[in-house]
């Protein structure tokens, strides 16, 4: 039986791991390589790592760090942050990364989705949409540059476009819910799931495993990603890397899948 994927998402800032709230207030939560080692032990389904400096400062990806993480990773590894060219994507691929995530550049220059897909294969190109509700009518809009710049682009229409251009997977990252641990924006997820049929992963808001389960109940095969949930423990948000055990995961799927 194929299972939905439950995916920790790690953010890199100043070479350390951080967790944000609504894309702000990065809090240091540990060393990236150490985190990968722990997630290996916990046998996580996949790992997403986003370098938020590379995106915001528009600098080169930290190839050395990516390589060190890829060497450790015993599960599929998706890297995002700072990728602007096909050459960069190919170089990162050569370091042992399975999936390349592009966000700001995919929105600014959508043809790059096709160009990267042609070189590394569609299945390896992940388009991340950072989404926020705006204005009087709470319209969903895509933000770029780490949530700093509003593009006014409708994520539902853009998801369709990204799929058409050859994206292998779409990630919806909800800025409003990021770090709040109060559950996912299920409306947005539903809207995007309706109009796309490539693999979809959602993040932003998971506070407990039932939030994860709720998405799985509605969508079955889907990727559910979380940051805070897998790096904090308890109401005082003590840093503790965690992930459901195989048994806990089976119980979760039994209840919701």
């Amino acid at each position, binding site marked *: *039986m194929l*299972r939905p994927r439950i995916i920790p998402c790690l953010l890199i800032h100043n070479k350390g791991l951080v967790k944000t709230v609504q894309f702000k207030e990065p809090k240091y939560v540990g060393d990236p390589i150490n985190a990968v080692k722990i997630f290996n032990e916990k*046998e996580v389904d996949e790992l997403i790592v986003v370098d938020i400096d590379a995106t915001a400062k528009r600098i080169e990806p930290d190839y050395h760090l990516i390589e060190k993480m890829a060497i450790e990773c*015993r599960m*599929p590894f998706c890297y995002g942050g700072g990728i602007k060219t096909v050459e960069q994507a190919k170089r990162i691929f050569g370091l*042992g990364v399975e999936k390349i995530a592009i966000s700001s550049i995919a929105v600014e220059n959508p043809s790059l989705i096709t160009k990267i897909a042609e070189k590394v294969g569609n299945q390896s190109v992940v388009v991340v949409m950072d989404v926020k509700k705006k204005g009087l009518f709470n319209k969903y809009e895509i933000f770029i540059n780490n949530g700093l710049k509003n593009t006014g682009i409708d994520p539902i229409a853009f998801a369709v476009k990204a799929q058409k251009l050859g994206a292998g997977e779409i990630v919806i990252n909800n800025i409003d819910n990021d770090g709040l641990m109060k559950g996912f924006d299920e409306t947005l997820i539903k809207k995007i799931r309706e109009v796309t*049929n490539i693999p*979809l992963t959602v993040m932003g808001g998971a506070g407990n495993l039932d939030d994860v389960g709720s998405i799985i109940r509605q969508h079955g*095969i889907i990727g559910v990603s979380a940051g805070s949930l897998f790096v904090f423990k308890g109401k005082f948000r003590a840093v503790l890397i965690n992930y459901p055990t195989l048994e806990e995961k089976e119980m979760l799927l039994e209840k919701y899948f």
Partner: protein
Amino acid sequence: MITIIDYGLGNIRAFVNVYDRLNIKTKVAKNIKDLEGVNKIILPGVGHFDYAMQSLENSGMKERINDLVLNEKTPVIGICVGMQMMSNRSDEGKLSGLGWIDGEVKLFDESKINYKTKLPHMGWNDIEPVKDNKLLDGLNTNSRFYFLHSYYFRCNDKSNIIAETIYGEKFASAVYKDNIYGIQFHPEKSHSAGIRLLKNFAEL
């Protein structure tokens, strides 16, 4: 020592990393000279069937590998598209396969898949061993592997199947004939179960 064929496709580094951790020596073969003294071969692969076949051809290693596998009976394992290349042909392309195991590569029947995402078959699925085989030592129906593919290997001789997996329909996720093995999933990215399988291959 394990020789990993590097013809430009597949995550070569991931295999090297797994074997490094197991203290098993590996060698990456990029051209025919690197194939001297080979005693075990991994044929990785991702992407399009024809592109993979053409890339192997272009590497200049194809004929020698054929000889090593078919005449010298060197143990070989094909992974993902590397497995599919061992067939006679694929619905995905026009080029002939290596023809090492009698079968053809077919596209999954989407009408049998009930999810919004029909293809690719991507994520963690289990395998059901249907035959005793040293490659699957210590693995069972609870062993999970990471899959990523839209085509599958259909054996003409069912006795070549050593494990099956269900995605809409039952398909061969591991095949075997003499010294030749093929697996559809990615052991290099499948945690302890994958490491066990790669260790089993090294110990054959």
